[in-house]
């Protein structure tokens, strides 16, 4: 980090000693996993910088925004419409929770057998480690899975700033109606909190900003379809993770710069791994920063991850929003509709997901699929069986992984992944 932010952290009420420890672990992990990669695109510089300032400059920006009376809204799920937050001049921050910290303190509020993501956001807060949670004016939860739904009650007791949106679990007319009302209520909540009125112009402008961001992410995804893969899966994952908390306009510009560079790479046949390396797609539970474990194992074993069918990935940017409306109500309705296209495993039935998966495998030229579920993430653990049956039928190599953020299963994980890559390689040579 470029300067000393101790005073800022202190004022936010962080536990300075623990926070220092966290930063040094993160810096080391980043060095080992990211900076050691070969032949990275030059434009990754920006994203490296963002990570190095993740608790510094970015927090300073948020605090400045607060001084200018903007509201900081923390979110945990891609169901929370960023467009509405921008429409009231707010800042949308996706709260990460990809590291194993403070799980013992988390266990005073939630059971041990809870998914690592939930334990992590509780743990971060209880150990005084997250400047984002401390800066937020409102933290938006949602009822996608039972674990989160109940954990937000405890989280609200500790933070006092949780607002929960109810996400339906089916997509019938009554569910769409409920969701539309939830989006309206959220708009009211934001208006009240920020004292900013939502207008048609503001809505259109914020939709444009978010659409542009999603388009840039789609562009990155398409570039990964090339063999030679022009960028590593680790780097692409990082960009997706950063898309949740960086300033969206700046992020989009920088990502497009990177994509220009990748365009050139694809044309001149420059890549990050030898041509013909196994190409793996990962599907399943979200991977919040700094959960780089599986990508690191896969790419460390000589394959390239070419796509993430995940909320930190394709599910976040697959659909754009239509700006064909002329009233605020019309805009809100369009937002509600767009978010109902998300194929999260919380829905029943959820056949769209299977179709999307097949589509992705084709467009990304993947040779195998790894279904990743965080332990105790019932939704994705359950869906993995359906996904498996679809790909089994097609004789497409499939591997199921259930794991958490700890490193104790690294040996097993490596063996599974390497054996899976052997299967892919053998299939290719036949």
């Amino acid at each position, binding site marked *: 980090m470029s300067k000393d932010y101790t005073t800022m952290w202190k004022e936010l009420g962080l536990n300075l000693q623990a926070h220092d420890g966290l930063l040094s672990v993160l810096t080391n992990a980043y060095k080992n996993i990211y900076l050691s990669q070969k032949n990275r695109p030059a434009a990754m510089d920006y994203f490296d910088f963002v990570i190095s300032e993740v608790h510094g400059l970015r927090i300073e920006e948020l605090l400045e925004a607060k001084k200018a009376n903007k509201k900081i809204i923390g979110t945990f799920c891609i169901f929370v419409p960023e467009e509405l937050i921008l429409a009231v001049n707010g800042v949308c921050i996706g709260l990460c929770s990809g590291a194993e910290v403070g799980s013992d303190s988390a266990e005073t509020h939630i059971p041990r057998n809870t998914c690592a993501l939930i334990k992590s956001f509780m743990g971060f807060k209880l150990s005084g480690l997250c400047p984002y949670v401390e800066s937020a004016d409102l933290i938006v939860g949602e009822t996608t899975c039972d674990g989160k739904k109940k954990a937000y009650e405890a989280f609200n007791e500790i933070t006092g700033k949780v607002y929960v949106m109810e996400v339906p679990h089916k997509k019938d007319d009554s569910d769409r109606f409920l969701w539309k009302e939830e989006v309206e209520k959220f708009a009211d909540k934001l208006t009240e909190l920020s004292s900013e009125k939502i207008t048609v112009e503001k809505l259109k402008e914020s939709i444009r900003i978010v659409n542009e961001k999603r388009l840039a992410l789609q562009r990155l995804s398409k570039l990964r379809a090339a063999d030679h893969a022009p960028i590593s899966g680790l780097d692409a994952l990082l960009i997706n993770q950063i898309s949740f908390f960086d300033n969206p306009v700046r992020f989009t510009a920088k990502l497009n710069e990177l994509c220009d560079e990748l365009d050139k790479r694809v044309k001149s046949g420059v890549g990050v791994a030898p041509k013909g390396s196994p190409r793996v797609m990962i599907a399943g539970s979200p991977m919040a920063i700094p959960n780089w474990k599986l990508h690191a194992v896969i790419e460390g074993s000589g394959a390239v991850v070419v796509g993430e069918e995940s909320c930190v990935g394709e599910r976040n940017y697959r659909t754009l929003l239509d700006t064909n409306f002329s009233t605020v109500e019309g805009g809100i309705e369009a937002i509600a509709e767009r978010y109902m296209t998300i194929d999260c495993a919380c829905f029943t039935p959820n056949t769209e997901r299977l179709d999307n998966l097949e589509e992705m495998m084709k467009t990304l030229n993947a040779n195998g699929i790894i279904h990743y579920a965080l332990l105790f993430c019932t939704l994705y653990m359950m869906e993995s069986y359906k996904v498996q049956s679809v790909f089994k039928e097609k004789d497409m190599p499939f591997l199921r992984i259930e794991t958490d953020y700890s490193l104790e*299963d690294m040996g*097993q994980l490596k*063996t*599974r992944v*390497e*054996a899976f890559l*052997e*299967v892919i390689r*053998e299939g290719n040579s036949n």
Partner: protein
Amino acid sequence: MKRAGLDIGSRFIKYAVIDKDGAVSFYKKETGHNPMSVCEELFDSDRADRLTATGYGRHLMEISGNANTITEIKAVARGAREVFPCCRTVIDIGGQDTKVISLKQDGGVQSFEMNDRCAAGTGRFLEIMAKALGYDIREFGRDGYPSDNSNISINSMCTVFAESEVIGLINKGIKREAISYALHSSVTQKVTALTKRIDVKDDIVFAGGCALNGTLVDMFKDTLQKNIHVHETPDMLAALGAALY
């Protein structure tokens, strides 16, 4: 050219050497706390021109011994196929991992499943239980099916709790043959559950040190109702497969 395969497992290191006429020699030593020096000793007893390493510690060799590495899944599949060309499924119960592998017609790996982190259904589990019952591990499983199996079963999934269950049964005066039988069927159940996730085809090769346990072999035959083959040194198949690779 002399080829060798080294299988660095959690309990034993196995070394297979194939000389230029195709004759195979096997060596085996406990892994201990310094696997590298154990490997050196093994190399000293029989030098080869080419080495492929496999097993849990395979990456040790990649770094220090510039050997190829392959996973134990591919290695054991290759080794099993070599000694039993009819093999379409491998059950491999090792020290800390249990794997079931289904092979394609041509012998390549089609799919595989491994146990989760815990030790239930692995060699380590049986070892701990044999000890609790006072059996030498080579004797464990020789009792076969007891005449009165007293209808007891071991219900704990966790090795530590299963061990307490065993001790509880001993203290109740249950015959150790009966407890041993219950333990074996518990392992069989765990492994059978794993096989349900793959396509089990005839013929099955049972690999890994636990395949020397006659009761386990019989139980698999009963539950899977398929042909099961066991090589005379089933624990060497991964090393052999690596040497052939």
